[in-house]
């Protein structure tokens, strides 16, 4: 059996996804980082962006994460985010509409949120 790491993806008000994975790729403030089983203990600040989780069954789970943290120790990885959504949960049309609206209203944070959602869907 290949080495695995246990992933917990939690948002402020719920637990979004948890399970076994072989690889997790996330974007920290100092660049993309890939975590595999046996990685050195790590605690980093996440940028808004898609997080890719390769599960032990070979599937890929993509989630849009809006800010947050990644912490890894003892083959347990936690992704903490105020808001986190799986790519399947994201309503593309709604996100597109939100992006349009944010652009016309020049709301930078809303624009970023919508953009992150769309990028997560594109990756997934």
């Amino acid at each position: 059996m290949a080495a695995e790491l246990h992933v917990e993806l939690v948002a402020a008000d719920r637990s979004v996804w948890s399970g076994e994975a072989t690889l997790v790729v996330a974007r920290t403030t100092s660049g993309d980082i890939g975590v595999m089983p046996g990685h050195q203990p790590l605690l980093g600040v996440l940028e808004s962006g898609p997080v890719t989780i390769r599960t032990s069954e070979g599937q890929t789970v993509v989630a849009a994460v809006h800010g947050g943290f990644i912490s890894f120790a003892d083959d347990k990885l936690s992704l903490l985010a105020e808001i986190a959504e799986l790519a399947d949960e994201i309503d593309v049309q709604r996100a597109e509409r939100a992006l349009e609206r944010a652009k016309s209203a020049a709301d930078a944070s809303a624009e970023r949120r919508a953009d992150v959602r769309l990028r997560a869907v594109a990756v997934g």
Partner: protein
Amino acid sequence: MGAQLRVYKRRIRSVTATKKITKAMEMIAASRIVKAQRKVAASAPYAAELTRAVTAVATGSNTKHPLTTEVEAPARAAVLLVTSDRGLAGGYSANAIKAAERLTARLRGEGKEVDTFIVGRKGVAYFGFRERKVADSWTGFTDSPEYADAKKVAAPLIEAVRKDTAEGGVDELHIVFTEFVSMMTQTPVDNRMLPLSLEKAKEETGGKSEILPLFDFEPSAEDVLDALLPRYVESRIYNALLQAAASEHAARRRAMKSATDNAGDLITNLTRLANAARQADITQEISEIVGGSAALADATAGSDK
């Protein structure tokens, strides 16, 4: 119908209507407690992981941060008081306010100025009526607080902590809210949120003490702590708001249950009184008829002679 009887009937009708309302409120509150409890449980993983991360940074590095270091002579403290928006919840808001008053008195006794921040219309009304100064207040979400609400509340508090005391900043941050112990027990508690004491933080989220590995910090320990602590405060406030919401519903359920019971008792008593009045009416009517016919009989018997 006798006048007395009519008065009783009317009172029974009005108490029955009141009972229906209180019964409905009791059931609504009961269903909301469950929902609120579920929300508290759903927020637990995030809070636990966050506490773990904060503990890891604070113990794993020698970083000094304004949010974790105790000031030698704290001059000003902020108190965040969580009350409810609506009444009819027994002593819920009054108890929280009393706890805040005790804490304020204690802090003043220690020579600190106190800035009060309030959540909930009841607390705002209490302070407004007494014309006391409130640094900031928020209303409208105590029934079912969202994370965004907690963020809104946390922002000025964090800002106040970051500011220098001389410029109106605060050195300490306390929160007073009603802890949800069980369906029957909710106790108002006051917690010091900042400066952070790690032992307490662990206790509160039920974390066991474990030896944490040496973390690699990305980008650096200072930056991680800088980003973590505001989130930590927000998550603590979110948790407090959720617990307060659950407590509020539990307090309202209990208050409405005793109101319903009371109305039931009142109806029983009034019904007995109404029955007695009815019987008295009937007895009087019978005795009037009997007396009248006896008088009539006497009169006719007399005229016969």
